[in-house]
């Protein structure tokens, strides 16, 4: 089935993330992020539809992203592409204004840095 995405996905990346499903608290790694969601690499991933609250310390001293998410898809790992890693695709919901701001700042900073390489390439050409 073809994935439906409304937002550009940023990755590969790795952001250590604490998450909780109900009373359970665990740790995983975000390996891609977009405005709409993220992939959380974790062994023994939570079930489809589970509400997951994440707390990720963003690079470049931006701050801590806290977001309520829901498991949109799940991978046991060992497959191709995104299914290669064990984990869950999370859809963000109820993002606070602060979480929106942090996410925007992170995505912007990341793409700006990648663009520096592109700009350099243009100059070289």
């Amino acid at each position: 089935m073809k994935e439906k995405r409304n937002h550009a996905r940023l990755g590969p990346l790795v952001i250590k993330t604490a998450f909780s499903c109900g009373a359970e608290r665990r740790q995983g790694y975000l390996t891609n992020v977009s405005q709409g969601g993220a992939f959380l690499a974790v062994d023994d991933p939570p079930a489809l539809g589970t509400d997951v609250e994440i707390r990720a310390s963003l690079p470049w001293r931006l701050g801590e992203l806290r977001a309520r998410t829901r498991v949109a898809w799940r991978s046991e790992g060992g497959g191709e592409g995104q299914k290669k890693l064990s984990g869950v695709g999370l859809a963000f919901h109820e993002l606070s204004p602060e979480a929106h701001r942090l996410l925007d700042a992170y995505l912007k900073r990341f793409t700006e840095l990648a663009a520096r390489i592109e700009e350099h390439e243009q100059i070289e050409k």
Partner: protein
Amino acid sequence: MALNGRLEDMNLLEILQIVAFSKKTGTLDVRGARVNGSVLFRSGRLLCAFSTSTAAAVRVLAGKSLDPGARALLESQIRTSLQELVSMREGRFEFRLCPALPVQWGDLDASNFLLEEGLDPQEILLELARELDEARRDSTRLLETADVLDEVEPRSHAGDSSAEASLAGSGLTVLVVDDEPLVVQIVSQELDDAGCDVETASGAEEAIQVLSTLANRASSLFVLIDVGMPTSDGEGFDGGFEVIERLRGMGGTFSVLLMAESLSSEARARARTLGVKRIAFKPTLTKLDPDEYGADLRSFARALRRELSEIAPDAGERPDSASSAPNLNHDAIFEFLKTMTDRLSSPTSGITRMILRVASKYVERAVLFLVKDGRACGLAGAQLGRAEAAVLKEARAISFELQEAHPFAEVVYSRSPVRVAEGRELPIAGLEPGRSRERALFPLLHNHEVLAVLYCDNPATGAPLPKLAGLQLFLVQAGMALENASLHRKLRAMESGYSLEDQGPLTQELTPLRDAR
């Protein structure tokens, strides 16, 4: 504008993400004071990497066709290189684009020895992040256990004279157990002079007898015991442990300070299991000279006296005679910092204590909070005029979630010190506020993450905090020492599983890559 800058601003894990995302071909060069390295990318995938410690092994592979064995070796070298580069705290980096794959890399023929398909950057990033977390857990354990078996520090004779710690009125009874009569005589005399009730025993049976009589009458009991006594079956020389086990079996509560001439890591572990918190190393070098040995033993006994005055369980709110008021004499503090920094080179124990000792030179109170799973938890503390045990108890009772817009969270996410202005609330109600007005929080960094936060204030006098640059610098060194300790443990583990045969004929050709760049 190329992608370049300082590792202090962007760590290598973050740089690898940016380059992998760009899907470009080029070389990332990293240069630090002690470690250099390079990573070669094609379309964002990692083709090769080397660092200072792997350069020789990578060089061996240059110009050779990669059979499966050599390929596995190269992959392993790439991973080791990346681990080394990712752990760098300072240095410069630059990613330079290459229009096509290089055939020369430095002075290396790069045409053959690159991994054809390259390594999946996502896989590598996750692997590196997991390794960093493992190192962090290692360091957390080191911090958490560091004060569990601290060493009693011998001090200079000059220092001894100024530290006539009194235990009079503490209600402390000390049982000294050693099969060496001279040790028992000198130590018990010193403690008697200090005001303790002292009992002695020369072996297990006698110690148990004495303890059974003390159990009912001693309000506060301390056992000072030599580990190197013969065991009851006469087959071992760690009879001190046997005695502690038997004494513990009798019930009752008492603290133990272990005396030893040396102690293996296994013995340290056994001591911790038995609830021993302190160890004091007896003088050994002068044993053949009775006069010198006697003098050394007296010095040793004075160190024990000071130590007991610090940790006496009922010393509660008695002034802590071993801790002195902050001393901001620049020369003295420089010498002290230098000594403490030297000691960080082998931080197998006591690192928490070292941090608190340095902090005590600057401020009246310092409390170290571990940062773990989004929470800050009190680990240990030191406070002018209070016994260490009391401050420790207070610190350990504090644990709170790191909240946004909170000074502690600010330190964790900015990785920078924060001065907390008067009136701003902190979730550390468990700490007696005293007259503190200004407070400061310092991060203890480990691989670019905050492992712990040091809280500092002046509750006794309410004096403004002094310049704390020396303390901040020491914390940087302490973080690096923890990183190194973790790396050394890893290297030892690698060494123990290393076999020359695994590497085949390649090991015969190892030469340094001095001129590669």
